[in-house]
């Protein structure tokens, strides 16, 4: 029994955290946040250089061959730093190909994704919030025709993994004909979306295993991990502020009402660490629990993150309500983590069904 991260995992978090501090301190993050694309090529190169964009890709295809837990602890650190860019969609696309691709397909796409030279993303949602594989209606054929919503960084992606009817996944290359993109006015400026319209667009199908389910479950785990990291950061920001901001002649951390609010926030953060760890661990080591615990963890941690974000605005007073205050960046990460891939309510409903209730 060792329910703890390994030294290697702690080192991984440390390395990623250092890179974020060096390459994307909050001052820099804000320029990306307020910029046009939400993507920073130099940061992507750095993260790629660390190997984290190919962490869970098998070694034979140039990845690190690690597990979902390793990916998740990385997502926690990226969430802590509100890392802008296509990490989430990219690792899910790579996972889909690694799980569902033929040897030729893997050979063709995975090395480029593992090195980060090519960026991947996933096109899951269809209109009306239909995120789940069994809800997809995009017809399956030699080509793709139809619309996908909320495709993360669709504009910069070199390849898109697209969900279609029957929970099938197809891969479309960026320069394929018949793709049109429309910008979505998303709330989280660190993770931008496009809407993607396909018109007789050539594609290749991923025919092995059940990659769509895996993408769904690992996606939920990574959202939970991101949410945990983000909520941890907000808590620290609030505690720090309480120790410096003065009112009535003392730092506001002296006021018990605020102390209790911060204690309640901590209670919304710290217990979720083990929850997301186990949800990630289960993806490789307890496959029969994997879907259910991923749903529970995403619903719970993302909801707590959202609550902590609301509390964090209040804890900062007037400045908390400004664009200038960094809290809003994480607040919007919380909104993303809570709504991407479906709502917590859907996750919870699913978790009961999976328990036979």
């Amino acid at each position, binding site marked *: *029994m*060792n*329910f*703890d*991260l*390994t030294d290697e995992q702690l080192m991984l978090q440390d390395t990623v955290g250092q890179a974020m501090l060096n390459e994307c301190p909050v001052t820099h993050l804000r320029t990306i946040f307020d910029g046009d694309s939400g993507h920073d090529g130099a940061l992507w190169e750095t993260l790629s250089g660390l190997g984290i964009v190919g962490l869970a890709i098998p070694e034979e295809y140039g990845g690190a061959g690690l597990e979902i*837990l390793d990916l998740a602890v990385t997502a926690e650190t990226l969430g802590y730093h509100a890392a802008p860019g296509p990490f989430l969609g990219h690792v899910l696309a790579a996972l889909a190909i690694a799980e569902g691709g033929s040897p030729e397909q893997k050979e063709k796409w995975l090395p480029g994704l593992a090195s980060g030279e090519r960026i991947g993303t996933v096109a899951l949602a269809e209109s009306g919030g239909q995120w789940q594989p069994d809800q997809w209606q995009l017809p399956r054929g030699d080509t793709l025709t139809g619309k996908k919503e909320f495709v993360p960084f669709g504009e910069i992606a070199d390849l898109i993994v697209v969900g279609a009817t029957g929970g099938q996944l197809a891969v479309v290359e960026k320069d394929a004909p018949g793709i049109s993109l429309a910008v979505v006015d998303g709330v989280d400026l660190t993770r931008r979306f496009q809407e993607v319209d396909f018109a007789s667009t050539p594609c290749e199908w991923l025919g092995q295993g059940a990659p769509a389910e895996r993408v769904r479950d690992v996606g939920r785990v990574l959202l939970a991990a991101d949410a945990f990291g983000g909520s941890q950061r907000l808590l620290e920001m609030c*505690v720090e502020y*309480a*120790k410096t901001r003065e009112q009535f002649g*003392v*730092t506001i*951390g*002296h006021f*018990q009402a605020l*102390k*209790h609010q*911060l*204690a*309640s926030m*901590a*209670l919304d953060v*710290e*217990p*979720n*660490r*083990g*929850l997301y*760890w*186990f949800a990630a*661990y289960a993806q490789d*080591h*307890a496959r029969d629990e994997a879907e259910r*615990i991923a749903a*529970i*963890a995403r*619903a*719970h941690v993302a*909801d707590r993150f959202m609550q902590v974000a609301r509390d964090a605005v209040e804890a900062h007073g007037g400045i908390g309500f400004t664009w200038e205050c960094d809290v809003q960046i994480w607040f919007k990460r919380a909104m993303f983590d809570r709504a991407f891939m479906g709502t917590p*309510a859907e996750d*919870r*409903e699913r*978790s*009961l069904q999976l328990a036979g*209730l």
Partner: protein
Amino acid sequence: MDLNYGSEMEGFRDEVKAFVQGNWPLSGEEADLPMDKQAATFRARAIAHGYLYRNIPQRYGGSEQEPDVLKAQIIREEFGRKWAPQEARGIGTMMLVPTLLERGEEWQKDKFVRTTITGEVAWCQGYSEPGSGSDLASLKTRGELQGDEWVINGQKIWTSGAHLADYMFCLVRTEPDASKHAGISYLLIDMKQPGIEVRPLRMMTGSADFNEVFLNDARTPADWIVGKRGEGWLVSRTTLKHERNSIGAAQQTRAGLKGLVDLAKKSKVAGRPALEDSTIRQRLAEIEGYVKAHQYSGYRQLTKDAKGEEAGLIALMMKLFSTEIGHKSSALSLDLLGEEGLLSAGNAELGVQAKDSQGWIARYMYTLGIAVAGGTANIQRNVIAERGLGLPRDAAANRSSSK
């Protein structure tokens, strides 16, 4: 990360399993003994095998094993699986015995440990007073050394089980001139004496499990003190770390959730099965999120304990987290009970498990008792904010430290 116990531990688990299989329930004539005798018989055998009271030396009735939180956890799991008697959970075993082992005189351990763990003697905890609850160190009950006896005057309150107890471990002000915390001593007092009057207090559930205890020239021998004079505050804070049951509370919230699911299965909302009601479903699933977070936080603590490391912030939170889960579960249970929420708590036994509607009513109230007892939610928040988050200490509490 590895959630398996490992082959050595699984070998140990097999041994424990075989032991439970062969020894519980009792068979033959022993199966006709009264239940408490059966439990005592089983416990004696479990001690002989090194399975219970592992941190207590053999000379005091324990089994004196190398501390090992994983083995302790496996024993709890395997005994629990077959409903075999575990270590007695009274306040004497859980609080006094560890304190004596750490701080007591040899003769005190000799006299009290064995009889306490076998359940021959029962204890109560005399800490709270009418004027001293959260601010426990302000307590006023006085003890004066007269010859070879302490003479004690004052009042304790909310004393659970005082009406059944043989002895009380008690915080008493013996050094009136010393500063607040340094004036307190930890005394052991025989409850069966003329100087002690126990008056039951009826709890909101209707039963009377706690009491007022009046001490009017109550007496106890001069050497029935644990630690030195004026060290009582420190002594009362002693806890033995090894083999702490770091996941017990989480196992209780899990059992509570299971009970809630069972209740939902048989309840109706607006004439339809409760489990078809989407609001009920959402609330149930939301509570499970908290329960799972509790469970894996318990595993984190267990791992830290096994390595002998500090668990940090999470350790300060477990009581408040249980309390909050208790509030949420209670609220849902009342909605599931529907019109049965009009019933009284009856004579239901208090505990996490509720067997019928009245048991659920009792539990609905009892979760509040747990919230208050042993340090209120606000006091827990103070601890999290101050010790956990490093925020400034309360000016008032600095003068008058709290539980």
